[in-house]
């Protein structure tokens, strides 16, 4: 196979890869933060908040990512009049999407901490917030590492969907080069390889962190 088309366009493709990584980084940060809050709201006891969180999680989990992106990019501006750029819409859509899945992982992580831990925390005189932040969360977060990295790998792959609304991330850049040179075989092979390396690398990082911080042997 002749990969010269990939090498000739390497700077452009590398730029696309940088956008992919940047998007994934932003979404990992935003999605984890929102997912944590949403998961806490979902596991908490405030009735209104809890039900709102359940509704949001179930709605998002029943909707395809592409449709969420279209809603943010096309449908919301049609109603509100405010337009996002394609990149903003993609990042907002990804965060809105992945945080619902992360929230479910947070919920099961919180539920996996034995009740006795919480009770012991209260017994030694900690208040609600201290029990959550000093006793429950540190244990829950460690148990959540494999599930969280599963979501991170998933959203790294999902960033490719941004190309559909015209963001020039890795997939968009590759398709643009292909439209000019029409060499789909080497270009798509390189594209698949790049995602594989990034995704597999991320899951290896997750496994390493899990071995290092996991409490269950």
């Amino acid at each position, binding site marked *: 196979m002749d990969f010269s088309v990939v090498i000739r366009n390497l700077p452009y493709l590398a730029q696309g890869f940088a956008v992919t990584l940047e998007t994934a980084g932003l979404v990992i940060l935003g999605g984890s933060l929102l997912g944590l809050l949403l998961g806490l709201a979902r596991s908490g006891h405030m009735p209104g908040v809890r039900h709102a969180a359940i509704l949001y999680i179930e709605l998002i989990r029943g909707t395809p990512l592409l*449709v969420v992106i279209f809603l943010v990019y096309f449908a919301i501006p049609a109603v509100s009049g405010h337009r996002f750029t394609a990149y903003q819409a993609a990042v907002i859509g990804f965060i809105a999407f992945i945080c619902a899945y992360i929230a479910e992982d947070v919920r099961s992580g919180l539920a996996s901490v034995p009740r006795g831990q919480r009770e012991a925390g209260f017994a030694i005189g900690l208040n609600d917030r201290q029990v959550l932040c000093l006793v429950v969360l540190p244990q829950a977060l460690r148990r959540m590492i494999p599930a969280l990295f599963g979501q991170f790998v998933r959203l790294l792959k999902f960033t490719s969907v941004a190309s559909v609304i015209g963001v020039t991330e890795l997939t968009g850049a590759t398709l643009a080069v292909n439209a000019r040179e029409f060499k789909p075989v080497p270009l*798509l092979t390189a594209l*698949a390889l790049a*995602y594989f390396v990034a995704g597999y690398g991320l899951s290896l990082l997750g496994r390493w962190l899990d071995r290092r911080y996991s409490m269950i042997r």
Partner: protein
Amino acid sequence: MTFSFDWGVLWRYRDQLLSGFAVTLSLSILGLIGALAIGILAGIGGAGASRPLRLVAATYVELARNIPLLVHLYIWYLALSALRLPAFLCGVLALAIYSGAYVAEIVRSGIQSVPGGQRAAALASGLSPRQAFRHVIYPQAFRIVAPSLAGLFSQLIKDSSLASVISVAELTFVGGSIESDTFRTFEAYTAITVFYLIAVTGVSQLALWGLRGRAVDPAMRY
């Protein structure tokens, strides 16, 4: 800000919406059948005793699931365009191979969750390895695997929306064409969202109903 909704538009396009829904469902069902065929083989290989087979299964799983579905679709549609496969078939193949990797992992962990003593006991009581798998391991593994497979099917229905990108006229594609015909963007995308919610909720309710009393919580098995 004055925005008036016009939901009547959707009624005029009901035929397209329903045919898009039908395409989404057939795409997902055919994709699921393919994914099960590939995934069960790869899962059994991955849980098996043969080292080369395990390696082949693991390579397939890691390759297929670390590459975005969108790239799978483009590989079949663009890179293998010499095969001249229809877009719908490209969609089915991409979904089957991509989701097959997830099925393989579900099946593998299901088989491995059956304690080794079960197999040893089956062999000791005179069953052949094949019979041991068919009558002892499989029924136990199935109960553990079935709920995850139902979840995977919901995921597959949602993933099938990406086939719109290679011009398969499924639900999301229909939503886009209603939007460009009428400029009723919000109504069009809300409508297809509702269709997806119906499909996904339907699958999970059906699974709950079908697995009533059959699926077993792994912690409650003994």
